[in-house]
């Protein structure tokens, strides 16, 4: 039904946007191994996005590409965290740590969804997200305990992104109405923050003070990034409407 589709779209948009951001590290990573690792994570996320958007599209007779390439900015439902610029590697890792910790909590509950498609998608994604989280936690340790500069940079990344954390736990429409089909974002808050706190403290870093940036409705009303992401992502598809590739 449409409410489930809208929920799948929220999850799919998060994955798509983060994949898009991450993929621009490819050929720019600090080590060749990281080109491979970040491409891997970006590919996993793109895979999740494709499943979720394909599923969402069934409610409106749309394909994954209709949803990815022919929705306008205000029709996307991604959170601001995944839309943030990559910045340096420290900031990218901070974003990965936050998002994959959240996503891991989310999918480990979504496997019990009463919607069999969502449960199956979550099941497939869960192992991958576990790897994403390990990867981010490992790098958080290396950067946090590495050099003075690296510790400063990842701390800056965490400080800078922390105000977008609360948005992850907002019970936005239509989730509360979906019952056991969905996972209530607010129900993830405590465990996610706990895990994050552990990872951050293990790396000798400081958990930033919680204070959410105003405006957390996933409509893009409060983002200046989304338009730029879409301008680039959609440019070719929109230049040739109706073409197949």
């Amino acid at each position, binding site marked *: 039904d449409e409410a489930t589709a809208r929920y799948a779209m929220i999850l799919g948009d998060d994955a*798509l946007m983060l994949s*898009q951001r991450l*993929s*621009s590290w*490819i*050929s*720019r*990573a*600090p*080590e*060749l*191994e*990281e*080109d*491979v690792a970040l*491409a*891997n994570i*970006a*590919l996993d996320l*793109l*895979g999740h*996005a*494709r499943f979720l*958007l394909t599923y969402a599209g069934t409610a409106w007779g749309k394909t*994954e*590409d209709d949803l*990815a*390439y022919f929705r306008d900015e205000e029709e996307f439902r991604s959170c601001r965290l995944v839309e943030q610029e990559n910045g*340096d*590697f*420290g900031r990218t890792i901070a974003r990965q740590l936050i998002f994959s910790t959240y996503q891991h909590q989310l999918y480990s509950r979504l496997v019990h969804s009463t919607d069999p498609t969502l449960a199956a998608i979550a099941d497939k994604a869960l192992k991958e997200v576990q790897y994403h989280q390990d990867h981010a936690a490992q790098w958080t*340790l*290396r*950067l946090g*305990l*590495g*050099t003075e*500069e*690296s*510790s400063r*940079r990842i701390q800056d990344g965490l400080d800078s992104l922390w105000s977008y954390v609360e948005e992850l736990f907002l019970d936005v429409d239509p989730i509360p109405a979906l019952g056991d089909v969905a996972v209530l974002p607010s129900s993830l808050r405590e465990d996610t923050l706990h895990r994050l706190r552990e990872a951050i403290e293990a790396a000798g870093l400081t958990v930033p003070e919680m204070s959410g940036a105003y405006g957390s409705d996933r409509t893009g009303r409060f983002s200046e990034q989304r338009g730029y992401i879409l301008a*680039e*992502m959609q*440019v*070719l*598809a929109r230049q*040739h409407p*109706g*073409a*197949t*590739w």
Partner: protein
Amino acid sequence: RAGQERFEELIAADSRVEPRDWMPEPYRKTLVRQVSQHAHSEIIGMQPEGNWISRAPSLKRKAILMAKVQDEAGHGLYLYSAAETLGTPRDEMFDQLYTGRAKYSSIFNYPARTWADVGAIGWLVDGAAITNQVPLCRASYGPYGRAMVRICKEESFHQRQGWEILYTLSHGTEEQHQMAQDAVDRFYGPALQMFGPPDSDSPNSGQSMAWNIKRFSNDELRQRFVDMIVPQSEALGLTLPDPELQWNEERGHYDFGALDWDEFFSVLKGNGPLSRQRLEHYRRARDEGAWVREAAAAYAGRQHQEQAALAGA
């Protein structure tokens, strides 16, 4: 000397030389140069296609392209490892690339300006690479030959994917067809030049062939490639930009026109359309990643110390 004898035996028997075997310095040097050049080509080769990941026109194509560029990084890793077995540390090879002392395949100094270029790179550039590399799977140096086996398997996927991109474009809208034809027009010549200068102009090939590194001459491989792509281009519904291209019944091969070797040597000298850009992209990534590598090293060092301390306690 026993080592020298054994080396010669191995070569004569067309067997593999392994890292711990004795080998003549010139053999080692030739291999390091060739393998690291090949590795660098994979790394720089990530850029033209990487350029289209963010704009790929469907999610499926985006996923395929991302996986392909990731494979190239992977190939780089295998090849740097193979070169390291010859005693050259990876950082030294990185430095050579960074400072512009190392070469990589000139083809990557051409831009991937349109989506169709991604197709043309897959079909023609990976196609030429495979033609070059399949014989290298039998290269006398073991780690290199084995790396090539893995790489060739993946490359043939890539070539197929490139062909599919072009096929879809060629049979799509008029603009898409035109885009595909343009891309082929631009990449055909440079792809044929990937086999290197004509045999008459390639003085080092003989020694490489005697060592069982190279198996066929530049011109032989080029001919093989042309013979392969002509029927493929017909299946694509695209033309190759060479009016002299035609089947020669007598030779059992396609004849083809002369290539622009002035352009080739000019690009080789560093004046490719994007030579500067490619190197600067690489350098920026390296510079911006320096603090990360330092941090990782410091962390690893500390971990090591702690473990040593525990072991000592």
